[in-house]
């Protein structure tokens, strides 16, 4: 009896507040916008109390296809998320590797330093970059002082500043799973490779790198999936020309108050993310099983 209750309480909560909401989003994406409260028409009608009529309105989806704005925003989001993920990996892998290879006593503090920024406000940390990146900001002043550039660069309000913002905010999500796999790595394998005459770099490529693939995949998906729908970073650091789908959904909902189109944008975004999310769950399960052994 106790066992059933342990499962049932969180199960019911998640069904009610996680799964059913998606069904409602799906439902509303098929209804029509209306000037009413709430601003959409009913999907199911009991006509004359005997006929059940269901009207599916694909208008919102057709609208997504006809207006190129949405396609541009989806593709742009995927591009920005992909580039940011690669940059996170390029910076995060050596860092995770360095922490995993550091003396035992150092690992805890080094890891703590990765997590610490994560405990302070994300919004304020993104805001800090405005002061650094803007035209008369600290980075431009520094580069001018060094003599690397002659005139201030426009960095803020471009894609570059979005990349900086995303890599900065999501780097811990890349490093932690990478560290978890690299730390468990058996050093004797590398010794064996060295005995067989492999140079350190060859040993890294043929032993360490393949064995850390689960960490690479988990970290990349932890960065990529939320970055696709990111709203705060592009709206603070991005320019008027950078269109990301998270901001489009936000505007559709808050500015245009078109709930059916906002729902259709959300459903389309979820469809883009189904495969990455399932991959994430697969690798998450694998990591848990590996931990069990």
């Amino acid at each position: 009896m106790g066992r059933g209750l342990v499962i049932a309480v969180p199960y019911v909560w998640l069904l009610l507040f996680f799964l059913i909401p998606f069904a409602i989003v799906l439902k509303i994406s098929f209804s029509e916008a209306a000037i009413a409260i709430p601003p959409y028409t009913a999907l199911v009608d009991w006509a004359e109390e005997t006929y059940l009529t269901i009207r599916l309105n694909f208008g919102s989806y057709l609208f997504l296809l006809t207006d190129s704005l949405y396609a541009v925003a989806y593709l742009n989001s995927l591009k920005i998320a992909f580039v940011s993920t690669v940059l996170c990996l390029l910076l995060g892998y050596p860092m995770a590797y360095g922490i995993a290879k550091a003396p035992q006593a150092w690992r805890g503090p080094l890891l703590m330093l990765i997590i610490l920024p994560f405990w302070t406000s994300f919004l304020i940390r993104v805001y800090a970059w405005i002061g650094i990146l803007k035209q008369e900001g600290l980075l431009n002043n520094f580069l001018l002082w060094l003599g690397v550039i002659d005139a201030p660069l426009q960095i803020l309000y471009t894609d570059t500043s979005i990349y900086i913002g995303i890599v900065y905010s999501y780097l811990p999500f890349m490093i932690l799973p990478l560290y978890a796999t690299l730390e468990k790595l058996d050093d004797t394998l590398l010794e064996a490779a060295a005995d067989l005459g492999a140079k350190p770099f060859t040993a890294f490529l043929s032993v360490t790198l393949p064995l850390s693939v689960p960490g690479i995949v988990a970290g990349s998906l932890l960065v990529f999936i939320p970055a696709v729908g990111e709203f705060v970073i592009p709206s603070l650091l991005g320019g008027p020309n950078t269109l990301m789908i998270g901001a489009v959904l936000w505007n559709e909902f808050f500015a245009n108050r078109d709930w059916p189109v906002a729902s259709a944008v959300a459903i389309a975004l979820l469809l883009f993310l189904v495969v990455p999310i399932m991959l994430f769950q697969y690798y998450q399960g694998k990591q848990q099983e590996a931990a069990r052994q």
Partner: protein
Amino acid sequence: MRRSSFVLTMMAFGYAFLYVPIILLIIYSFNESRLVTVWGGWSTKWYAGLLNNQQMLAAAWLSLRIAALSATFSVVLGTLAGMAMARFGRFRGRTLFGGMITAPLVMPEVITGLSLLLLFVSLEQFIGWPEGRGMTTITIAHITFTMAFVAVIVQSRLISLDESIEEAAMDLGARPAKIFFVITLPIISPAIVSGWLLAFTLSLDDLVIASFVSGPASTTLPMVIFSSVRLGVTPEINALATIIVALVTTGIIVAGVFMARQERIRKLDEQMAASSSA
């Protein structure tokens, strides 16, 4: 050797990248000048300004209450979920359950926020609850997305845990509830503490989901910060950031010392138990 100097360079760059913006914020929070880039001498006037900003104080108080409530509920639900996943093996609907626990970890916030708002609107239409949106709806939303983090932390702690102590207690005739409260709970308490802290921080920090499910009378701290950043930079934000950094750093150091001591005591207990049984 070349690779190791490459790794060291990347680590130095990475840590600098993470910390330089925060350090600059702290330095400039003491800047007399309103301009972020012009140094006008040391001053604490932005801290004084912060104390007089009623809107920000009210929002901070609301955010703190929501964070404390949702962290507490999410620890209870997340611990149950982590127990179910780590200890119960196969049960009906486990795949769906596992999926629903891990999906919120990666789900884009705009989708979670929109879907929860539409749920609350539909619920209000059909059963008249919740009436309008505010602290209750924000808290429910935060419980839902933070319990995933708690569940993962508790689950991994339980997996790495030796089950034989629990089995021994069972052999001695202890009931499952007693085993949980006397044995399992104390051992996983570090995981529960860090889960609570994580849920608290995530809730305190959330802008997107709270914006969707809040009503006109409920403005959280991130919403105030976001709108003031968009309207124009105010150095008061630097002061606020510095206070948050100071509080968090102190909290983490205290928690770290406390947990290290707990761990030492636990290890000592286990050693004594092992030597007395031998």
